[in-house]
């Protein structure tokens, strides 16, 4: 990175301007500032915008500390709407730092270029990241932790927290540093090539299958209703539903909920309310139980 930048700035300006070089330490400091403060001012309007600036402070101060105009520009540049999954999305920050570094040293990097990277990547990495982190890893570890914890084994919460912490922080740190290393050049490889597409595809398969397993394990809907026709007794759950397809009702419930969210485009809160009322009513009537 460093050598490259030097060459470019040297050639372009003709004069040997004092080059500002970032330490790995600066990049790491930014990582930790982000890890802690990304959401400190989370809000409906710009989401993680100020969190990003807060994280980049050591970098921006070093690069533009003696250039108020450039600092102003940089701050305004990054006050734009920004939102991504903070651990996997850290690759964006790494890249942005590398781009700011080059820009500060005279490389012809426009505000548009930096914005392009941010807005272009924040969506995909929110998707991948949320699928893997909140959507897959957390539920898996919770399933393990709850199954221990529900028996009063304190290893349950402990294992959950330790495994999650180790896995996610390791990932997040390396992804962030990787972003800085590949910089704006590597970005084209990631964006254009098949890598990003592969990651998204793989994550979605992994996530979907795990969710299926969770649905089967944790959605419980049974129908204790028994139909009496003369002396003939028909237990709906065991003699009909189970005979046709195990887990028919939980699957139906999950698909129904999905349908309301996706096709009917209902809001989560509405669906929650609906489910609550429906389940409560059917429970009171003894149809579900």
């Amino acid at each position, binding site marked *: 990175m460093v050598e490259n930048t030097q060459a470019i700035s040297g050639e372009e300006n003709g004069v040997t301007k004092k080059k500002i070089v970032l330490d790995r330490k600066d990049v790491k400091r930014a990582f930790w500032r982000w890890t802690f403060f990304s959401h400190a001012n989370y809000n409906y309007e710009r989401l993680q915008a100020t969190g990003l600036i807060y994280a980049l402070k050591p970098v921006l101060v070093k690069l533009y500390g003696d250039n108020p105009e450039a600092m102003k520009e940089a701050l305004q540049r990054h006050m734009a709407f920004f939102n991504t999954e903070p651990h996997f999305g850290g690759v964006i920050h790494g890249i942005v730092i590398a781009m700011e570094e080059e820009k500060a040293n005279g490389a012809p990097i426009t505000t548009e270029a930096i914005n392009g990277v941010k807005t272009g990547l924040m969506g995909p990495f929110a998707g991948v990241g949320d699928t893997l982190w909140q959507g897959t890893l957390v539920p898996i570890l919770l399933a393990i932790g709850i199954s221990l914890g529900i028996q009063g084994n304190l290893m349950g*919460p402990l294992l959950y927290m330790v495994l999650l912490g180790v896995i996610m922080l390791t990932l997040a740190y390396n992804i962030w540093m990787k972003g800085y290393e590949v910089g704006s050049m590597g970005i084209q490889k990631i964006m254009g090539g098949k890598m990003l597409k592969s990651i998204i595809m793989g994550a979605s398969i992994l*996530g979907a299958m795990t969710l299926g397993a969770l649905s089967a394990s944790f959605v419980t809907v049974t129908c204790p209703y028994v139909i009496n026709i003369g002396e003939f007794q028909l237990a709906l759950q065991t003699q009909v539903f189970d005979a046709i397809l195990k887990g028919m009702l939980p699957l139906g419930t999950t698909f129904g909920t999905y349908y309301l969210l996706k096709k009917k485009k209902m809001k989560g809160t509405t669906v*929650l309310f609906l*489910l609550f009322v429906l389940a409560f009513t059917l429970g009171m009537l003894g149809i579900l139980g």
Partner: protein
Amino acid sequence: MEISLFQAFLIGVVYYLGEVGTPWLTLLFSFTGLYRPLIGGTIVGFILGDPVQGCIIGATINLPYIAFINAGGTSPSNPGLAGTLGTALAMAAGVSPAVAISIAIPLGLLGTIIWIAHMSIDVIFVHVCDKAAAEGDINRLCFWHVWPPQIVMAIICIIPVTIGAFYGAGAVTDIIANMPERVLTALTVVGGVLPALGIAMNLRAINREGTLLFFVTGFFLVQYVNLPIIAIAIFAGVIAYVYTKLFMNAEEA
């Protein structure tokens, strides 16, 4: 069990520390840490002097939120409140974990008010930051990113929970004592149905062709082969790799 004012306050702090947007523990250890009833409940148990009971109740309350997701800041429920205040009230009322769940769920619903409040109020601070940016004053910007929002959030998180934990216990005990069996059953049904919401929201977030197919595969591997989640995650990882590899291999050929 009595909850002292100091304990009630500590529980309020636990809730505050777990809320999305508190920086002190990182997002990881707040939003996917204290915010989850499994963790929050255990800590509340510690505060009330019985971590094991707190762990059991927290784990139970966590069940309907197992696949809870909050992507892009939209949240239909607040497991953080359900896990902290819910566990506290359940322990105070001395109810079974199954009943605890029916105390916690309505709290989770109520909790969304807190979330919406803080996500809205913070908009004000962003505008102050805009001005700081226009002046190139990064220090002021960073100050406004952290302190004002955190003070607001501490207030709207800690006060209600402290009050709820301190005064709520009695009310809850009364309500539970007078609740007919039927209603408890119905609330258990609700608890069994709710995980479907988290899962469905998660699925919607993935939103790709073929998603439901893989979903169904995972579902029936549990139903018919009785595999635990971790095993399915492993096999799913293999399948994801193989499928993606073969798919991309064809794409580029």
